[in-house]
């Protein structure tokens, strides 16, 4: 027998699993009479349908019976179809087709026989079978006298669950029987189908099924009637179960802790809690009120007595009731309610609202539009209280700006204090200042354009954040890199280039990386332009390109008379460009004959790209620009050298010209897991090689994970891809980025207000004020309160968390609440 709700649920889910995994168990077994009787076990109930042959009529019944197999099995009742064959004649086998019946056995004792028409559906089958088995637990009565007799007999002993159903065998009957199966030993179940009986105990709406809990156990005086609690929900197994659970809970609990923390069985059952706030002086009266409320709210809410005096948390001074909703995370509400009826109606109204809200939630599934969904704004807001070491940067003002940027080489961050992106970047900027502390000649400064708007405008800063580098005698350079610590550091470190190289030896040191050892960290490539002294325009073009790339790459110029020595050594015809890749220790030369500055920039930027790079958050955009499908090898850690070799071989063999091959280290770029999750379901083991067609179509192809990443397999796979023989594993969504949530539609609000104004002239605000005045009067004269119609009674009511918000927002002009917001 199931002793608790959870077990009950587990039981159900177990059954569901059984259906899923062991379908044979639940199908109706077909047995011969002899075989059937041999299966009967002592004390076990069994329902058997004896039939002779299939007919349309019996097959409808059999379908229902088949459905009843599972629920009856839950109650330990087996079900079988017994085929009456000529060879085995049983007394249960009827002589005619129409007279076929079902029989209920307990052990091998026959309990009841059912004509098939009483077992019209699965509900009827379950209800009838349980009714027959629980004949002692469930008393069926037909008149008031019977009820009174049972009531009297149980006073001071046990509680009664009395129910009325319109007929035996309907779903409500089944629900009552199922409850009786669980609770039959704890409570006396009484059942009737007589409307007259129901009417005589004062019920309304007698068309519907009713279930009462008779609190007889408490009654000691036999002349006293048992209190009754009507269950208001429809009669379903689950509702009855919840109802009985709340009946079992203590009527009133005393607590002295933060209402927000209190939890009782009611909350678990989805019912709210009502705290009656009490203090020492009025304890007795409060307790009586609380009990009275508890009886009224039995089955609807849990009622607790909150002892204010021993409470550690503060609750508003005038609040006498605390209301806690069942939903998790909803703050408690503090109420001032001067009437028990008001408490009851508050609970009832709010239960109703809950239901509606649930429906709405189901329909919309939308988060609150007042909740921040911008990750930058949200994180900056959450971090607002952390103190940054701002003193590491110089704050500029209108007065100091010009003097500062004239006096020393400075980096200026233009930001706006109220703009989230600015403030997020300010943190990186401060990090740069921390890292450069005491090592750089560059002065790190910042100016808040929210304060010094004119300075920013004069510096042509119209958006935020902006970084500019001011150097004596030069035009300010705008930083156009990633808004992050690393890239800005690199920019600052590399800003002094291009440089003039003056001797062959220096040039060699420059190319080997010896000359600017510290900077190799920031720029893995050094660029050296080689020009004979007469190549004026070529030099200018190169310088221009070098200036353009300032802060991104190290560039140098060599244009001495002995330049030919270098050009012959590196097989470069002048003018030329030498690219020293320090990581690979390679130096390549590119001819620069009549190449414009812009093209030089392009050549250098292209040269910065690697053949098989590790793709990162920072460098993806450079490769993304190539507009080629990405061939990404996802690796948990450093890429396997063999895979790398295989792919590099393919690159050299020009197999991968139409792709951008790269690899992703999940340890360095954990967000790669999010990418994999979008590609694979379920995720095969790493490493994974994936081709992502980002720029046309969005198809994602996966290299079979059961194949080794070796050249031959890759070539084969690529060929199949090319031939269209590979199926994509997914297509990236092509969804546009729409507004994440709707906005307030003020236009229709204004329209609605304008159309209303025609009918009622009184402005909303005025009306509220009037009502408030009524309210005050009533508070002064408490005896008048009950005489006033309920509608005019106004409940001061505010939600705790909102209260601070309100107070803050409406501090303006010392007002309490917004005009339309008086609840």
């Amino acid at each position, binding site marked *: 027998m199931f002793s608790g709700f959870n077990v009950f649920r587990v039981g159900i889910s177990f059954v569901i699993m059984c259906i899923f995994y062991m379908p044979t168990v639940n199908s109706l077994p077909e047995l011969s009479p002899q075989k059937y009787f041999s299966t009967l076990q002592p004390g076990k109930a069994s329902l058997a349908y004896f039939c002779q042959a299939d007919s349309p009529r019996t097959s409808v019944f059999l379908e229902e019976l088949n459905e009843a197999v599972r629920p009856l099995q839950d109650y330990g009742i087996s079900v079988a179809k017994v085929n009456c064959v000529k060879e085995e004649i049983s007394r249960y086998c009827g002589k005619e087709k129409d007279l076929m019946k079902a029989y209920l056995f307990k052990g091998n004792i026959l309990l009841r026989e059912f004509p098939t028409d009483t077992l019209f559906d699965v509900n009827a089958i379950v209800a009838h079978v349980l009714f027959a088995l629980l004949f002692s637990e469930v008393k069926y009565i037909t008149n008031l006298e019977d009820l009174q007799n049972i009531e009297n007999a149980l006073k001071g002993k046990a509680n009664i669950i009395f129910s009325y159903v319109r007929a035996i065998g309907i779903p409500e009957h089944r629900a009552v029987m199922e409850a009786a199966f669980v609770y039959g030993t704890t409570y006396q179940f009484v059942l009737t189908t007589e409307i007259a009986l129901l009417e005589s105990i004062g019920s309304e709406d007698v068309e519907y099924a009713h279930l009462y809990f008779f609190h007889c156990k408490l009654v000691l005086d036999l002349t006293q009637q048992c209190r009754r609690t009507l269950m208001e929900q429809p009669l379903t197994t689950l509702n009855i179960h919840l109802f009985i659970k709340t009946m079992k809970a203590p009527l009133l609990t005393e607590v002295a802790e933060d209402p927000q923390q209190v939890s009782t069985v009611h909350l678990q059952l989805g019912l709210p809690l009502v705290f009656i706030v009490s203090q020492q002086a009025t304890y007795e009266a409060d307790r009586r009120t609380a009990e009275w409320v508890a009886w009224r709210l039995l089955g609807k809410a849990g009622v607790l007595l909150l002892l204010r005096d021993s409470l550690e948390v503060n609750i508003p001074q005038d609040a006498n009731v605390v209301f806690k909703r069942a939903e998790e995370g909803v703050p408690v509400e503090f109420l001032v309610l001067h009437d028990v009826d008001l408490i009851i109606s508050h609970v009832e109204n709010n239960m109703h609202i809950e239901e509606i809200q649930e429906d709405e939630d189901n329909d919309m599934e939308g988060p609150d539009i007042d909740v921040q969904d911008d*990750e930058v704004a949200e994180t900056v807001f959450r971090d607002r209280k952390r103190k940054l070491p701002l003193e590491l940067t110089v704050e500029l003002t*209108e007065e100091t700006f010009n003097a500062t940027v004239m006096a020393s080489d400075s980096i200026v961050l233009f930001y*706006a204090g109220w703009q989230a992106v600015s403030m997020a970047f300010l943190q990186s900027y401060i990090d740069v200042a921390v890292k450069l502390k005491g090592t750089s000649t560059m002065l790190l400064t910042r100016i808040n354009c929210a304060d010094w708007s004119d300075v920013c405008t004069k510096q042509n800063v119209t958006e935020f954040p902006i970084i500019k580098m001011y150097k004596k005698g030069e035009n300010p350079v705008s930083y156009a890199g990633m808004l992050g610590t690393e890239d800005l550091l690199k920019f600052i470190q590399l800003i002094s280039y291009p440089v003039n190289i003056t001797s062959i030896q220096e040039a060699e040191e420059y190319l080997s990386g010896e000359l600017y050892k510290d900077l190799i960290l920031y720029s893995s490539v050094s660029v050296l332009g080689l020009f004979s002294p007469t190549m004026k325009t070529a030099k200018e073009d190169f310088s221009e390109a070098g200036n353009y790339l300032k802060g991104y790459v190290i560039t140098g110029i060599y244009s001495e008379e002995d330049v030919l020595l270098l050009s012959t050594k590196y097989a470069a015809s002048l003018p030329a460009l030498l690219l020293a890749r320090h990581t690979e220790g390679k130096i390549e030369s590119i001819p620069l004959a009549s190449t414009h500055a812009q093209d030089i920039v392009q050549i250098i930027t292209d040269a910065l790209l690697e053949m098989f790079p590790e793709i990162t958050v920072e460098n993806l955009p450079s490769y993304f620009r190539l507009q080629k499908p990405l061939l990404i090898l996802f690796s948990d850690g450093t890429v396997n050298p063999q895979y790398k070799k295989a792919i590099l071989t393919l690159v050299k063999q020009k197999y991968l010209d139409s792709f951008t091959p790269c690899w992703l280290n999940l340890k360095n770029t*954990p967000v790669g897991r999010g990418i994999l999750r979008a590609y694979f379901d379920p995720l095969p083991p790493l490493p994974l090689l994936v081709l992502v067609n980002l720029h046309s179509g969005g198809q994602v192809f996966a290299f079979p994970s059961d194949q080794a990443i070796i050249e031959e397999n890759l070539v084969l796979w690529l060929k199949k891809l090319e031939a269209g023989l590979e199926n994509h594993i997914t297509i990236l969504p092509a969804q546009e980025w729409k*507004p994440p*949530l709707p906005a307030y*539609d003020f236009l229709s609000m204004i329209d609605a207000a304008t159309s209303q104004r025609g009918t009622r002239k009184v402005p909303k605000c005025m009306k509220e004020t009037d009502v408030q005045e009524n309210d005050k009067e009533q508070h002064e004269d408490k005896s008048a309160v009950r005489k006033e119609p309920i509608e005019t009674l106004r409940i001061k009511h505010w939600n705790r968390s909102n209260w601070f918000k309100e107070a803050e927002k409406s501090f303006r002009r010392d007002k309490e609440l917004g005009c339309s917001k008086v609840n």
Partner: protein
Amino acid sequence: MGLSAAAPLWGPPGLLLAIALHPALSVPPRRDYCVLGAGPAGLQMAYFLQRAGRDYAVFERAPRPGSFFTRYPRHRKLISINKRYTGKANAEFNLRHDWNSLLSHDPRLLFRHYSRAYFPDARDMVRYLGDFADTLGLRVQYNTTIAHVTLDKDRQAWNGHYFILTDQKGQVHQCSVLFVATGLSVPNQVDFPGSEYAEGYESVSVDPEDFVGQNVLILGRGNSAFETAENILGVTNFIHMLSRSRVRLSWATHYVGDLRAINNGLLDTYQLKSLDGLLESDLTDLAILKDSKGKFHVTPKFFLEEANTNQSADSITLPQDDNDNFAMRVPYDRVIRCLGWNFDFSIFNKSLRLNSGNAFGKKYPLIRASYESKGSRGLFILGTASHSVDYRKSAGGFIHGFRYTVRAVHRLLEHRHHSVTWPATELPITQLTSSIVRRVNEASGLYQMFGVLADVILLKENSTAFEYLEEFPIQMLAQLETLTGRKAKHGLFVINMEYGRNFSGPDKDVFFDDRSVGHTEDAWQSNFLHPVIYYYRYLPTGEQEVRFRPAHWPLPRPTAIHHIVEDFLTDWTAPIGHILPLRRFLENCLDTDLRSFYAESCFLFALTRQKLPPFCQQGYLRMQGLVSTESLWQHRVESRLLRDYAPTGRRLEDSSQQLGDQEPLGSPLAPGPLAQSVDSNKEEL
């Protein structure tokens, strides 16, 4: 002679100029721009013309600028606020609370350097205006009284005619464009029997000693009337104040031209039973009679008519003879007229059609919302006289208002005659929210000229970028393209500042309970001055839009509207209360996602989606992504706006479990709602 007077101001005339001067003796000198009057508005326009390098001259009757302020206000106290401290460094913001300075690039030319008084002395204004003209080297021809203005048709002229100005010496000046910034200089007089007994504000004694023990009647109920009363309140027997309409308090009407609290001492003594009093009656129905003792009696005019022209107070029946509690039965020692000022139309020839069918009678010349005369093209009214555009609504009749309208007029003309399009900043769409937040928090022109000048955002194709135009006269919105030279094909936003619809009025209780609105969803009911953003899918140019413009709306009906909720500190930078609802509004107008994202999120989107949000497109993909710091990254995980993908290192979790986890991918960041709800949303708009 005009030219020779102006020459020293140009510096030493070169040879070229000397040659040019010679024929000028026979042909009247021609200017592109002429400004009448070197008051605040005239100097302000001169400043903009000078900065733009235009050919202009200012004609001033007096030997120095701002001659009005040498005499007025009579009691020398300006009621325009000189707020020297706001707690803010932002110079643009501070102009919101500086009602006296003119606009210039020179921070020394701020009025706060000229007076420490919150309500400064008029002499400081004279000194300020003089310095303004001198420091900036504005070309003003002093002691030049333009006696007559007429039109000379000429097809070659910019506007089809030249304005011919003749000064007191008979010297003629030819102008392509004429700015009239002469203010209101003619005292308003109401004609009624006995009006000649009234002394005018312009000439009445300002010495309280002259009023000791007298009964005084003041006609009028404006600031000059109350200013006059304030001066003599302590020495008179009583002051009665008579005017047609009820008193309008500026703090109830939110109009700075109505009675300011600094002048309202008489209201206080009246209501506190100190013999002073206010009376309402139409002056034209009254008559003032002088009795044999030289005292003045007030009577309804019809009493006079019955008595048939016999004008002596002693002989005719007075109201109190029948009605012995008639309020004005006491004789007065003095009657003072303080009925305001009118524009001086006298020098303008009829051909200019400056005053045809004017709604404001003879007070203001009739002009368009572009400040151009309705009668003659190329004739603009600036300054106080241009107040008909926003009379009793905004600040266009006062320095702190018209300094901006003058700039707007200058911008319109720069486009009309010099092909300089209205200045605008072009920015990527990701800066849209920020640019609006920036302006509503600091712009002084929007704040002072609420409802008259508004910022306009013109969207570019596909809404990837926009142009931001500042302080356009919104009543000219329909002609925006022709007036500014900019295109508004792809929709536009208008940023205006507004008080609540029912908040302002002479009989309004501006201190009612619940007047403050704090909730973002109630922002449209905000009462105090707050930003309102109008969205138009198309520029409202047609008759239809104008006709469907709802009553009391400053603009035609928009496609959608947003109110930023009023703020006690006028600081609209709260992330949730102000910026978030604004972003949602803009997003829904543009049908896009305007959130900002860290580079890591953009990286994820770039590899898992075919489309990227604008912030990633315009930032990250251009290698300008926003990298998050460690502490912000932690907040990001906590806020659940992004999943923590780190298997180890940052968080100790089993990586295989993480990978097996089939939770929807970064769901809070996913692009917008389903297509269905977006569509329904569109319909609402």
